[in-house]
């Protein structure tokens, strides 16, 4: 259409392409960026690596932050342990105690680790590292186990059954009300806890919380 001819409205639009803007990425371009992995193994690149290989790689690339056994150095994340802690006061959520799928570990580590130089290792090295982290978590118990694109999706994680779909609409139905209570809703209350007692708020030199004028 030329000037003066209005574009068809959404309702009339044909299902086919409408704008002709941009271009199709080439197969190579997609391959370069398409690094995600799903629980069913979709997306796994061809490759393999053993726990033993992973151990060495982990010491070289990961242990400085996550500790030699995935216990976490300083405040850096803990990667192993915490089994059975999910119902305790202080759950320790790790790959072994919490993560539902092994694919997530491969997807994440390749996307984001080593912190600061992600995607810097070879595909085989990522398989080895994932194998080692699973080993640290007792998901894999054989040091000679070789993790690969053909077996990663078969690995069963301990807490796979630990998740449920968001059910707030039903389990928290009581929060939907007609008219909120306005008078004498609860018995008189008392202060039971104070942030100042916990005393972890960043402070200015004057000892007041940061940002107090």
């Amino acid at each position, binding site marked *: 259409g030329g000037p003066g001819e209005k574009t068809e409205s959404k309702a009339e639009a044909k299902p086919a392409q409408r704008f002709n803007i941009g271009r199709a990425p080439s197969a190579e371009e997609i391959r370069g960026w398409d690094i*995600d992995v799903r629980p069913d193994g979709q997306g796994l690149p061809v490759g393999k690596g053993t726990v033993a290989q992973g151990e060495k790689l982990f010491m070289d690339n990961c242990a400085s932050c996550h500790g030699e056994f995935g216990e976490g150095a300083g405040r850096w994340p803990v990667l192993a342990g915490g089994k059975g802690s999910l119902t305790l006061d202080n759950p320790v959520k790790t790959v072994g105690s919490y993560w539902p799928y092994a694919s997530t570990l491969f997807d994440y580590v390749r996307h*984001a680790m080593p912190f600061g130089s992600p995607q810097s290792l070879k595909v085989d090295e990522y398989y080895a590292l994932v194998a080692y982290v699973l080993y640290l978590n007792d998901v894999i118990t054989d040091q000679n186990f070789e993790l690969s694109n053909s077996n990663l999706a078969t690995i069963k994680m301990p807490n796979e059954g630990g998740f449920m779909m968001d059910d707030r609409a039903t389990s928290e139905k009581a929060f939907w009300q007609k008219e909120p209570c306005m008078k004498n809703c609860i018995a008189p209350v008392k202060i039971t806890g104070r942030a100042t007692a916990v005393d972890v708020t*960043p402070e200015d030199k004057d000892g007041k919380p940061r*940002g107090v*004028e």
Partner: protein
Amino acid sequence: ATAIAAPARAGAGNPANQPPNVPEWTRTLGEGVAVRPYGKPSKFEKDVVRRDVEWLTASRESSVSFTPLHELEGIITPNGLCFERHHGGVADVDPADHRLMIHGLVERPLLLSLDELKRFPRVNRIHFMECAANSGMEWRGAQLNGCQFTHGMIHCVQYTGVSLRTLLEEAGVKSSGKWLLVEGADSAAMDRSLPTEKALDDCIIAYKMNGEALYPEQGYPMRLVVPGWQGNLWVKWLRRIEVGDQPWHTREETSKYTDLLPNGKARRFTWSMDAKSVITSPSPQAPIKHGKGFTIVSGLAWSGNGKVKRVDVSLDGGRNWWPARLDGPVLDKALTRFYYEFDWNGESLLLQSRVQDETGYVQPSKAELRKVRGYNSIYHNNGIQTWHVQANGEVENVEVA
């Protein structure tokens, strides 16, 4: 002229600049136009900044800085003060080289530059964006003394961009395409699964906020906007959308952003942000400095499920409630400003606010919330906040029962 009692003011300032004198800024010329081609706040506002809590994280590159809610008014957050949450630092993206790839279960995979994205029909919407971990440090009790820290992982701006639906229609999602993987170009290459249903509903690929280009820390040159849903889904520096038939269960939706319940089970895909409110002033960083008398309670309310219907304020820790006044536009999935004005008699108060959204959902007390969710949910803490106003006007974050 009737004499009116003057409340004591902190610091007398410089009388030479006060009446009857003519202040120095009247007696001399100020800076000319365009001396600052891009403006900035007065030097007297230097404390109005984003702040982080150092002990929270091992490194600033995977960390959070908080919006100074106690210093702000209205519903728009200025771009310079929108809270930050990064997993690999602020990607410094050259827009000339940035690309958005759409592929997977689509008829026509697409590769778009920023200039090309801007050629698609544009939409403009004002929405809040809240991190699901906002108030997450408060599950076990009052921890951080200031609403910047307890509630500052939220902002609200006007976005301009392309409806995600437009792009998905352009690419032609196959009937089996039920989920999207959305992925960032930052060093964490953040990836999340998004149901096609939401993607086709109201999501936006935004390139402007409050009229101008996204700031780098907000995803320049393009980010995903997922109205009403947790901020983690609003992928910044968006580089890729893959259409699939199943969710990916990425690290950010398994290890993180799942809500552990007391029975050891965890809720996943808890996308929408429950209705929530907070009094921004008075608050620990914004004490009452004027003594007793007419007092303004100012606060924010919002809901990921629609518009704010009403807000009530309590002065006695939730026993009795008084309707607040909503002021300024009340928009869908946007921050809403409320006020409650009263004569303070100078006695201590237990200040709370409580929102009800248009679905009827009423913000629960912390006790009500913990009864269902326990103490280890980390995310989605929308319990009612209590501020203890002391007789001297100082305010602290407290728990009540």
